[in-house]
């Protein structure tokens, strides 16, 4: 009799553990997606602001601002809106903002600004990996264990003056 009751309790616990794992994954997954969207939204808005700053200065005598200037203008916005990451500046390499790399640390999102005089464009990139609560399983573009990619790249044409 007692054996039967014990088996019943054990079965209930196993069932509860199974259901809890599934429900917890779903809740964490939903939370993660919400936080990811919030973080991406912050990065999109910050990049837009950064590119206006960079493009506005592109036609000035001092030329387009360096990464440090754009970064200092949008840093506080990024600091308050990034979930699972902190912002940091990244200098262009050979005149190009480096593409997102799997070797970059998780939890850091880099801001890079560069002008392409030949193409007449200014570019602001916000790239990096934010920490993830659960491994993504909803088909997100690029991901690695425990991290989700932020890869925002805005390009505008700098002002051209008539001869």
């Amino acid at each position: 009799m007692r054996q039967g009751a014990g088996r019943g309790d054990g079965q209930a616990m196993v069932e509860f553990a199974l259901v809890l794992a599934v429900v917890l994954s779903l809740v964490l997954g939903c939370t993660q997606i919400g936080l990811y969207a919030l973080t991406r939204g912050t990065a999109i808005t910050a990049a837009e602001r950064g590119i206006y700053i960079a493009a506005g200065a592109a036609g000035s005598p001092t030329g387009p601002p360096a990464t440090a200037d754009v970064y200092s203008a949008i840093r506080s916005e990024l600091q308050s809106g990034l979930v699972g990451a902190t912002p940091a500046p990244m200098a262009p390499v050979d005149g190009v903002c480096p593409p997102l790399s799997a070797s970059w640390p998780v939890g850091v999102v880099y801001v890079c600004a560069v002008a392409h005089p030949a193409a007449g464009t200014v570019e602001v990139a916000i790239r990096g990996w934010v920490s993830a609560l659960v491994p993504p399983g909803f088909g997100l573009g690029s991901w690695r264990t425990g991290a989700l990619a932020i890869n925002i790249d805005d390009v505008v044409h700098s002002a051209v003056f008539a001869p």
Partner: protein
Amino acid sequence: MTGRHNGRRGEGAQSVVETALVLPFLIVLALGFAGAIFVLDATTELRSATGLATSAAFSVPYGATSQALFNINDTFQRSVSGPFLEPGSLRITCPPSEGNQYLYSATYQPDTVVSCQGTVTVSFSNNLIGLVWRWNVTLQQSAQLVAPPFRQCAPRVTC
């Protein structure tokens, strides 16, 4: 004994059936929520890119309409990116029917509005969210910017 044994087995079966009934609803809810969040995310991306692209109308001297339209489209194509956007669906138009005297009229008209509409299609067909979001979502955002009061003119254009 046999009756009690059958009762316990019945309870076990009942809980399995209940779980099997509830779980699909939970999964559908979670996938539906995920889809809605990504559609909102794409809307943010599209609004930002449409605004940036519209501002590219002022990157060339007044009267260089084809160059302005090229810059608008180029800025838009290079600034829109998202996990579930259909690559071929990115479009931006600034039609003459919406005013846009700055782009299309023969003489410079300050304080007129440049109005562009960006369109993207969000598709979840290649991932789990597509089990719930079985249709493509086409998003549209518009941006209006007022032409600056002073502009240089392209050669052979009256300002």
